[in-house]
């Protein structure tokens, strides 16, 4: 650009050789064309514009190669030079004005930084164009005067504007980004108070879309299903009535930005300008995505708790139905009841009262364990002794046998009463859901003692295994005999001992619960 001034109004003492002038002129002609290509890389130009820009540039290049040597500055300007200059000015103005218009229009609906950058580039383009026209139309013999000052300052403005548009300093970007930062803060606030997954995504998506100037944003789950979608309402400024003249092609290369979340993938159909102008905005969306992940995790915990409360209430409903029905019948119909009816009602009352009591005790126990408030003291416990005592508390019912193959030497770190509870619960579970033969085995390896309780029953249904240790998870055929909390308590206890429990299918059939504990000593 600096060269331009010299060549159009060449200096006295800097008269370059003819071929150098030509190369410089060709480069000069290429500058607006490169700018045109730059703008075209975001949004394809119309066919007419493409031809005009390419044609004018080619014409200049050909003319530059064909013409004879340029006259020196003090020689009179021949007619062909004037024609050449007009062609050059035409090429520059046509291309620069369209580039400016396209960048300006492209900035619409973009986040502030992108919009400002694109508009500053449009400004740069425009002032360069004005500088060219002014200096080109100036009389050939002009001496340094006010016109030169105008041209020089326009060129300076343009140079600064190009620099700011292409690489704005960080401080400026920060100031420009203020509206987006404010929006981000507001969204973060809402994310942190959302209690449902859907609310989180509903907050995140419009923000993510606005941040990168996208028309739509979606969250796609692991299976490729759309979990939530947002589409920008059509805005007036984009309507054809006010907007473009002529054919406006849809952005051919508009990229979709994919941001992985724990709950799926955030897909933003970004504007084609985003990857160049809005990289930091994409980063901002990314960090908001991780916050959304946290918010979703929180929502899931809340949802689980709500479900648990509902399930627990439901569990209590069954014994309550019997107890309140018996009470009501006694109150209203006592005199009509037969001795047999009274007896069976009282038995049911006892059974269901006991069931409600167990359920509530287990719920409290579980709550304590989850809070870490259970008083668990770890000490060496001989496995064989614990198994023996568990079998005393929960002896095998009729029709079931328990085979014990436990190493006498095996000793683990556990709370003795609680280890018995673990074994009792596992045994009870096997009695209820397992087959006729139940096995308790131990295996010692360096670093751990593995206790296995297995049976030859129907086994745990595949779909139940992942949730088997969740409270109130029960098999279909359970008939509500247990509290549905036994295995959940077992898992929390084993973890409190510093161990791990797993459930798997037994071969050839049945279920197998493996408790891995730390050896004592």
């Amino acid at each position, binding site marked *: 650009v600096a060269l331009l001034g010299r060549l159009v109004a060449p200096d006295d003492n800097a008269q370059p050789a003819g071929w150098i002038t030509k190369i410089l002129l060709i480069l000069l002609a290429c500058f607006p064309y490169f700018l045109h290509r730059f703008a075209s890389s975001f949004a394809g130009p119309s066919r007419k514009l493409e031809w005009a820009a390419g044609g004018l540039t080619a014409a200049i290049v050909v003319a530059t190669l064909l013409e004879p040597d340029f006259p020196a500055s003090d020689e009179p300007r021949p007619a062909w030079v004037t024609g050449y200059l007009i062609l050059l000015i035409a090429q520059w103005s046509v291309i620069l004005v369209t580039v400016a218009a396209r960048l300006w229009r492209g900035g619409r609906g973009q986040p502030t930084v992108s919009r400002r950058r694109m508009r500053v580039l449009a400004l740069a383009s425009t002032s360069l164009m004005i500088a060219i026209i002014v200096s080109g139309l100036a009389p050939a013999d002009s001496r340094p005067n006010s016109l030169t000052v105008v041209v020089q300052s326009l060129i300076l403005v343009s140079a600064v504007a190009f620099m700011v548009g292409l690489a704005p300093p960080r401080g400026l970007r920060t100031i420009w980004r203020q509206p987006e930062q404010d929006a981000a803060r507001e969204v973060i606030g809402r994310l942190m108070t959302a209690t449902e997954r859907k609310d989180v995504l509903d907050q995140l998506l419009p923000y993510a879309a606005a941040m990168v100037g996208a028309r739509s944003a979606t969250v796609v789950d692991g299976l490729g299903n759309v979990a939530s979608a947002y589409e920008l309402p059509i805005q007036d400024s984009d309507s054809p009535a006010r907007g473009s003249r002529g054919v406006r092609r849809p952005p051919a290369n508009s990229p979709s930005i994919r941001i992985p979340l724990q709950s799926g993938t955030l897909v933003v159909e970004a504007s084609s300008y985003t990857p160049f102008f809005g990289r930091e905005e994409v980063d901002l969306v990314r960090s908001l995505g991780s916050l959304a992940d946290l918010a979703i995790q929180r929502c899931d915990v809340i949802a689980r708790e709500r479900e648990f409360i509902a399930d627990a209430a439901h569990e209590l409903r069954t014994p309550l139905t019997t107890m309140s029905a018996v009470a009501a019948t006694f109150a209203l119909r006592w005199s009509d*009841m037969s001795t047999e009816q009274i007896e069976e009602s009282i038995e049911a009352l006892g059974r269901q009262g006991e069931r409600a009591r167990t359920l509530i005790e287990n719920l409290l126990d579980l709550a304590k364990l989850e809070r870490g408030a259970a008083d668990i003291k770890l000490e060496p416990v001989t496995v064989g002794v614990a198994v023996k005592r568990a079998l005393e508390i929960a002896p095998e019912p009729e029709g079931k046998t328990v085979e014990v193959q436990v190493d006498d030497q095996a000793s683990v770190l556990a709370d003795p009463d609680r280890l018995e509870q673990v074994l009792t619960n596992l045994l009870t579970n096997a009695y209820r859901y397992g087959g006729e033969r139940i096995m308790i085995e131990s295996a010692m390896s360096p670093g751990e003692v593995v206790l296995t309780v297995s049976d030859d029953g129907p086994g745990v249904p595949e779909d139940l295994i992942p949730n088997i240790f969740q409270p109130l998870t029960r098999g279909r055929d359970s008939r509500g005999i247990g509290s549905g909390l036994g295995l959940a308590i077992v898992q929390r206890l084993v973890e409190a001992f510093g161990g791990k429990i797993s459930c798997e299918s037994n071969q050839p059939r049945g279920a197998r619960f493996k408790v891995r504990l730390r050896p004592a000593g």
Partner: protein
Amino acid sequence: VSYTVLVVEDEPDIAMTTRVSLELAGYRVVVAETAEQARDRIAEPIDAVVLDLRLPDRDGWWVVDEIRSHPEKASIPILVVSAHASPSTLARARDQGLPYVTKPFAPDRLVGLIGEILGGTASQGEDVDPDESPGSDQAPPVPPEE
């Protein structure tokens, strides 16, 4: 001859209290613990069904379909009992014109509803909305004397 009610309920104690309440109101009661058992008993001389929707083997709605497609018993009244009073369950019961009670229920309310639907056997498919039914205050329509 007294009416016979089939109680389909897998919780033995709830089945027992339901049975006792109905017996005290003068009905004969047969109990089925599973959906399959219920299906097998439809053919027996029963006049109404109290059906828990949560059964160990199959969905209670399956039993409804079995009854509704039975050549002779298609039109016997059914009272649906549900522990989960979810809107979808209630809507489905309403769509099928079935009265329902949710657990825990007062036994006399259940007995009242049974009396009502048995009294209305002449006009089939009438929707008895339990929310509007007088329920507990109302003495059951005189069950036939034994």
